[in-house]
């Protein structure tokens, strides 16, 4: 910095110091000057002058003290900050003088800003905040994708993953894991817990440190039977015992040794309780290549981007397709940042929420702007006087903007409060599978956001009115009030704001309408089974499968005759929770075949399950007590499979081979109706149903017992519990209902629909209030003109029509713009819509009709008021 720059900087710093020092300095300077004058006086007096003369001469020699004092004061301050401070004080005084308006404005602003803050708090943590791992942007996850079929899966094949790691240099560490529900016994109590089988580098890759103990050693294998426990599990199931290390828990009847406890807040995968090493360690290549059930994470090597990693992986996937055509045909791989992977489901919902609250805030700002424009009429005298006294246009605009900024900042302050209270409310409504909900909290980012929003709202609602208000023709105003051109300008701008508001609310209302229709469709879709009145019991029998088969057979026999039970069955998966799937072949295994994990759903069940779930049997018979392990293998198929493979022919009697296990061909004995197996949103897939007792080895001993009840399902819980306990004392049990587990599929749609509809309604109210306000203002301004017209013979009907036409034109233009906007925006709703098109004319029409009716009422009131104007009184108004 050159000398001139340095001296400027020093002057600025000195002024700043002076500003902060206050008025004491001025008094001291005064004393200094007075002392100097006194000394001069004494000198002249000593030379022989009279006291009076000496004083005069001293003053003359000294010069202008007032000027000096002013200069001193001027150097002690920063003029810009002084004027800003003045403006703020003036703004507060002005706002205090209009309490009604000020309170309303602050209220509207704080609600608008508060809603935005609440949504942002949730969205920021769930979507944007970096994950709580070491260097989280370098952690990636993999997904399998079949481009030609259009399917994708978040699971990958483990031998594939090993090939990716071996064939590319993009990853420095790689870990794989698989989670499942397992029976865990701690001490005397048995629970169902989320257990994760993982490779040794899991925790090291994520970069988390243990709270107590250690994690797996890099070369440790599953033989060591080590297990790591989550903080929540340790707290709730193990009483947070500090001496937990080296104690044992049983997972599936294998004793595992506790080696470490995770810190609080660590939850990856979401909700997991225990982690142990998988048997696949060191045998990764021996896992079936067809099974795409593994989750794989990797850390990118330094300097490698995701795009580069993807570019390395795609050719490897192609090579694997050639090498293993049976399993890998058509399969490729997708790599994405872990954070993007986790938030992919929540993103659309949160984006639409943020858009909705943003729109509401904009409409609120437009409303405020129109109110400010209306009030500008009353302030022209004040502005004119200021301008006449020498205030430049910029200064006046600055002062008006400061007023609006004070409003906005007050609104922002209360808004932050509302946001802080509102985000917990949002959390309770939010679907449980949103990632990272536990991490949501108010932090500095939220405050910065609130401040930024306040600033933006100031500009949005304050700038245009400020500029218009400051543009007054001094001559006209000081003589006789507002000039006609100014009213015209303000009226035009108000109309523009109103059109904007209507357009925005059309967009929001249309989006809400589409979401409502999707939600209704979701709740009324034909599922293929009856989800009500079904009690679900997760249970896992220790010991060997023969014992388990006997257990289930006897339990179901007892249950089906118990009071209050309509039917009872047991199945590996259930609708909404597909347990297994894969390929099938009719009549014989072809010489060359490919394995497709999504060709069909495998359902393994006990007799009676169909009746328990309310699934119709359309042809043949279902499983019965005769379908034992020694009896001929039988299977059922669903209508989709029958249509797909047999067309019009009768499938009964044909055989089917499923890729589930090695039990060989099964005779098709029955056909069931189609069921939406994966979720209510997805169409039914082909299904192969097999009898549990004929596939014991592959299925294991854990099934879901499904009981259709006459009354509420929960009422039978204790009965079932007693029955199970009577047969096995230490079996873990978990009860729920089928409706509860299906509710998670409608959780996100419900969340979206309720909130967007709510915001749409608010937007509508605000827009209608806006049009009402503007029309009232315009009628007020044109009172004289209306009086004149009536005096000249216009009927009240003419006046009413005139006013309504004003409003109708603005509303019509707004609606047209709104429809155009809606058409381009609803396209983005994409996957959120179910069984309804983004351009669904019924929804659009419904929204417009609703809006028109409400707008008409809003226009009619000022119009009828205009018609009741007394022409005599109106023409006297000056």
């Amino acid at each position, binding site marked *: 910095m050159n000398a001139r720059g340095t*001296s400027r900087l020093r002057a600025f710093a000195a002024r700043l110091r002076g500003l902060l020092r206050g008025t004491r300095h001025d008094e001291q300077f005064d004393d200094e*000057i007075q002392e100097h004058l006194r000394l001069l006086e004494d000198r002249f007096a000593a030379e022989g002058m009279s006291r009076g003369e000496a004083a005069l001469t001293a003053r003359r020699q000294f010069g202008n003290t007032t000027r000096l004092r002013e200069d001193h004061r001027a150097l002690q301050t920063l003029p810009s900050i002084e004027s800003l401070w003045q403006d703020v004080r003036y703004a507060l005084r002005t706002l205090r003088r209009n309490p009604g308006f000020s309170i309303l404005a602050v209220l509207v602003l704080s609600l608008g800003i508060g809603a935005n803050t609440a949504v942002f708090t949730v969205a920021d943590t769930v979507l944007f905040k970096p994950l709580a791992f070491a260097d989280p942007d370098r952690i990636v996850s993999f997904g399998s994708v079949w481009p030609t079929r259009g399917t994708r899966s978040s699971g990958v094949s483990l031998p594939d993953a090993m090939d990716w790691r071996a064939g590319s240099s993009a990853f420095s560490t790689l870990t794989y894991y698989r989670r499942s529900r397992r029976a865990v016994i701690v001490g005397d109590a048995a629970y169902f817990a989320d257990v994760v089988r993982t490779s040794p580098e899991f925790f090291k890759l994520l970069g988390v440190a243990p709270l107590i103990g250690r994690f797996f050693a890099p070369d440790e294998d599953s033989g060591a039977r080590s297990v790591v426990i989550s903080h929540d599990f340790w707290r709730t199931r193990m009483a947070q015992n500090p001496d937990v290390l080296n104690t044992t828990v049983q997972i599936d009847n294998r004793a595992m040794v506790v080696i470490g406890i995770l810190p609080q807040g660590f939850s990856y995968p979401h909700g997991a309780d225990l982690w142990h090493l998988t048997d696949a360690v060191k045998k990764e290549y021996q896992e079936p290549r067809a099974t795409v059930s593994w989750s794989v994470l990797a850390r990118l090597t330094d300097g490698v981007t995701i795009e580069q990693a993807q570019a390395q992986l795609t050719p490897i996937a192609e090579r694997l397709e050639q090498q293993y055509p049976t399993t890998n045909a058509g399969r490729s791989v997708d790599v994405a940042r872990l954070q993007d992977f986790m938030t992919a489901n929540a993103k659309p919902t949160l984006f639409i929420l943020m858009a909705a609250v943003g729109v509401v805030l904009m409409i609120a700002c437009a409303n405020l702007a129109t109110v400010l424009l209306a009030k500008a009429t009353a302030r022209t005298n004040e502005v004119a006087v200021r301008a006449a006294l020498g205030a430049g246009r910029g200064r006046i605009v600055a002062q008006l903007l400061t007023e609006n900024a004070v409003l906005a900042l007050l609104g922002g302050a209360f808004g932050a409060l509302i946001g802080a209270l509102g985000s917990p409310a949002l959390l309770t409504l939010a679907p449980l599978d949103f990632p990272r909900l536990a991490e949501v909290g108010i932090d500095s980012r939220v405050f910065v956001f609130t401040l930024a929003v306040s600033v933006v709202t100031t500009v949005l609602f304050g700038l245009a009115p400020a500029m218009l208000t400051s543009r007054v023709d001094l001559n006209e105003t000081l003589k006789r009030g507002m000039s006609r051109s100014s009213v015209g300008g303000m009226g035009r701008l108000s109309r523009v704001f109103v059109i904007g508001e209507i357009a925005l609310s059309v967009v929001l209302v249309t989006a809400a309408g589409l979401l409502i229709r999707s939600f209704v469709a979701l709740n009324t879709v034909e599922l293929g089974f009856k989800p009500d009145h079904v009690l679900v019991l997760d249970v896992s029998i220790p010991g060997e499968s023969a014992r388990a088969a006997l257990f289930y057979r006897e339990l179901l026999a007892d249950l089906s005759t118990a009071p209050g039970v309509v039917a009872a069955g047991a199945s590996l998966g259930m609708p909404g929770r597909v347990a297994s799937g894969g390929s099938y072949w009719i009549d014989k295994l072809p010489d060359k075949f490919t394995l497709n994990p999504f060709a069909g759903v495998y359902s393994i069940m006990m007799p009676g399950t169909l009746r328990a779930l309310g699934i119709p049997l359309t042809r043949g018979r279902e499983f019965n007590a005769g379908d034992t392990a020694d009896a001929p293998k039988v299977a059922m198929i669903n209508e989709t499979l029958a249509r797909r493979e047999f067309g019009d022919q009768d499938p009964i009697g044909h055989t089917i081979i499923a890729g589930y296990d090695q039990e060989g061909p099964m005779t098709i004995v029955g056909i069931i109706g189609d069921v939406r197996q994966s979720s209510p949103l997805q169409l039914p897939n082909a299904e192969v149903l097999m009898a549990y007792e004929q596939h014991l080895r592959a299925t294991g001993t854990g099934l879901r017992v499904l009981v259709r009840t006459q009354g509420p399902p929960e009422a039978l819980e204790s009965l079932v519990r007693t029955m199970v306990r009577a047969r096995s004392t230490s079996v873990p049990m978990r009860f729920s209902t089928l409706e509860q587990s299906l509710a998670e599929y409608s959780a996100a749609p419900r969340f979206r629909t309720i909130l967007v509809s709510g915001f749409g309604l608010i937007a509508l109210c605000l827009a209608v209030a806006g049009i009402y306000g503007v029309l009232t203002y315009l009628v007020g301004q044109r009172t004289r003109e209306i009086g004149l017209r009536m005096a000249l013979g216009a009927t009240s009907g003419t006046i009413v029509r005139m006013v309504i036409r004003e409003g109708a034109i603005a509303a019509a233009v707004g609606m047209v713009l709104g429809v155009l906007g809606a058409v381009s925006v609803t396209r983005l709703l994409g996957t959120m819509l179910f069984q309804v098109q983004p351009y669904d004319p019924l929804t659009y029409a419904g929204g417009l009709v609703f809006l028109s009716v409400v707008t008409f009422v809003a226009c009619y009131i000022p119009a009828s008021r205009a018609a009741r104007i007394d022409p005599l009184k109106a023409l006297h108004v000056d």
Partner: protein
Amino acid sequence: MDIPYEHMVGSYGTSKGLTDHLKELTKAEDAVDAKKSDLLQGTLDLMILQTLHALGPLHGFGIARRLEQVSRDVLRLNEGTVYTSLMRLQQQRWITSEWGTSENNRKAKFYAITPRGRTQLETETKNWERISSVIRRVLRLQPEGEP
């Protein structure tokens, strides 16, 4: 049409003309003042720095007396301007101030030069000497054609 200032007194007239004209006038005045005072204040700053450097810490009255003495009444200025200089010199950190007691036991503010001030004094003195030597040389030049 802008009605000139003199005719505005007492009548309503074109407010725009009035305010604009006022602004013009005050602007011009400030400009002239600025030029005149800049030059004079600059020299005063230098003289004050030299005084403080030579005589050590002084209060405002003492500085004014010394300047009166040295300039032998050639420079006649309002004594108050000394304080304007002192304010500026303080802002630039070339002098510091401290409250103390004067010769006749009264409270007075004493000003002293800082090392930075001494450097500035040196620089400014060199500048002055350079300028004055150039001017001296220019003034010794004879007009062309004259002996």
